[in-house]
């Protein structure tokens, strides 16, 4: 047989990742041994049985740790008492919900029996509004800037992305350290004639700090998605507009923004979903204080269910179901938008 000359004689692949294959030796051994029982299983159950086998662990964990809790949550919310086990709890019907909604004046959380819940709802609402709107604005500006012809774009993108990876505890501690009495903020203001101030003991400032810090921590993520959206806009659209002598502002309003809209909507809903659940970094930064000025829903659930004595699992469950409803609505909104975008893409 004649050997045809290949179009290009590529060099043989160097043996890469040798250390990795050494590292994987024992794993391979175990997985190889697992083959004997599994071959037997395959003989018994056929290929369909193996599909079930592959799916089972994941679905089992889902069932136990996600689906089952959802059901138990419902049961908790209609039972009372401080016991944790379901059979020790008595049925109370809608009492938990009634307690939550027991207010004399719906505009004043203090008039409610569960004033902490309504305070948390109010705080969460304002947090969501402020955090999401400001963060999207900042992210959009950053994404627009990063989308310019820029040297080292990936470096700058990384700069804004850095805090996203930090743990919420670290984020909280970093800013607590900066905002404390002898902290960096005070020492920068000191030369300008401001006396040191304990910022986080100030109700208004603590709230502002919580909003600002969470924007700081998460904006990189949204910038990234928006930037990807911006880069997907065909360059020739801009070139055509420039050829027509269109003003930059007009280009932004008539080309960039409409074409970015699908991404922008997704990002907004995503940010809303995250913002509703805000907890970790706030818990470390302010602990919900001063007073209840930065008490948010998740922390309310956490404290009602786990910290305050006696524990009130029923109330916490009812509160989390109410929060879950909001999240479901938001998620459905997101899916709706995603589907609409997909359809648009098809057309």
């Amino acid at each position, binding site marked *: 047989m004649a050997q045809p000359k290949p179009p290009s004689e590529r060099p043989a692949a160097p043996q890469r990742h040798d250390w990795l294959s050494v590292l994987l030796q024992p794993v391979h051994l175990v997985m190889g041994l697992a*083959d004997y029982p*599994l071959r037997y299983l*395959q003989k018994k159950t056929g290929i369909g049985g*193996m*599909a079930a086998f*592959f*799916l089972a*662990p994941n*679905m089992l*964990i*889902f069932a136990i*740790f*996600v689906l*089952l*809790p959802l*059901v138990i*949550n419902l049961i*908790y919310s209609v039972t009372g008492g401080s016991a*944790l*086990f*379901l059979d020790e709890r008595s049925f109370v019907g809608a009492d938990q919900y009634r307690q939550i909604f027991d207010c004399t004046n719906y505009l004043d959380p203090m008039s409610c029996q569960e004033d902490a819940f309504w305070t948390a709802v109010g705080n969460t609402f304002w947090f969501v509004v402020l955090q999401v709107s400001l963060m999207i604005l900042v992210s959009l*500006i950053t994404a627009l*800037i990063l989308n310019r012809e*820029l*040297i080292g774009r*990936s470096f*700058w*993108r*990384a700069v*804004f*992305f850095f*805090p*996203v*990876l*930090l*743990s*919420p*505890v*670290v984020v*909280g*501690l*970093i800013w607590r*350290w*900066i905002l404390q009495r*002898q902290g*960096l903020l005070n020492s920068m203001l*000191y030369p300008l004639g401001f006396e040191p101030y304990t910022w986080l003991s100030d109700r208004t400032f603590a709230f502002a700090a919580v909003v600002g810090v969470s924007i700081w921590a998460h904006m*990189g993520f949204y910038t*990234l998605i928006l930037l*990807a959206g911006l880069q997907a806009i065909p360059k020739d659209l801009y070139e055509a507009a420039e050829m027509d002598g269109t003003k930059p502002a007009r280009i932004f309003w008539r080309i960039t923004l409409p074409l970015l809209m699908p991404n922008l909507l997704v990002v907004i809903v995503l940010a809303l979903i995250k913002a509703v659940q805000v*907890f970790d970094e706030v*818990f470390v930064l302010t602990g919900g204080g001063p007073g209840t000025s930065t008490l948010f829903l998740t922390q309310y*659930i*956490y404290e009602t*269910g*786990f910290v305050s004595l006696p524990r009130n699992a029923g109330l*916490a*469950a009812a509160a989390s179901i109410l929060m879950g409803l909001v*999240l479901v609505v938001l*998620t459905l909104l997101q899916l709706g938008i995603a589907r609409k975008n997909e359809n648009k893409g098809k057309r």
Partner: protein
Amino acid sequence: MSTAIAFLTRRKGGKFWHWTDIVTWVWLIGGLIVMFGPAVWLTFSSFKTPAGLAEFPPSLLPYVTQQVRVEGYEKPLPLFNAKLADGSTRVLAEVRRIGIVSQMVDPKAPGEIIKVRIGDREPVREISFATENYTQPFMQFDFFRYLWNSVFVTVTATLITLIVNSMAAFALSKYEFKGRNAAMLVILATLMVPLSVILVPLYSIISSVGLFNSLWGVILPTVATPTGVFILRQYMLTIPDELIDAARMDKASEWQIYWRIIVPLTAPALAVLAIFSVVWRWNDFLWPLIVLSRRELYTLQVGLSIYSGELNVQWHYILAMTVVTMIPVVLVFIFLQRFITTGIAGSGLK
């Protein structure tokens, strides 16, 4: 050099700086300071002694007052630059301070006591890194345990995540069976169920199976990530089915197909998921906080938050441990940031 500057400051067309160029660079440089500054500041602070931390206004670098041993005095004495009555300046060691007057000696001639008003003396300072901030928590407190717990949770959870998710993704991408779409729907639906909604019942499940106060109680609920299944499945769909047919003709069992063919070919997606999982699990806070109530089980995040929540916060230790907690994430950031950013840009997951 000048070409380098020209290169770095190259702008969109034109010879002159357009105002948008100025805005861009102000924004970028500002961003650089705001995004990195706090972490850098914290890292510098973590090397200061408690005295250095209490200073106001603080210095950037960790300075301490130099000390000397002087004959006749038990403890080392702090050194100062003292302005004497005759206008000359000498380096003196402070023996004690009485009111606004400091009693000082010349370290070389410790016999004579010199009195200096405290306003006329400046400490002699040197840079010194208080590494005991790092070593002490590990030796005296439980931070070594916390570190170990965090590593254990992160590594174990990531490994299980990779295996369990990739098996499920394999089943969902390469087999036809009844209920496949239902399974896919369930997985998508769980994307909607954040931890904060099922906190209480999840806790009761964990306690009733005896996993309360166990690291496995932290690990297990997190491993079946829907996002993981999702990205792996998307990736596996691109592997041609003919490869699997070929393997079947080659007498491979389904398990071998999974392990010898699918897993190696999914390596890039597995790598992305592994990175994500490491960051997720390392950073997890609320759930470990609930499950772990015994000190020796805390993860770094929980330990940090508990210690920092104490009445008398020992900031020098907290700062150092915060830096330790940041290290893996910073390493991921430096070496694997590109993976993550493309992963997010591609799938919009977090």
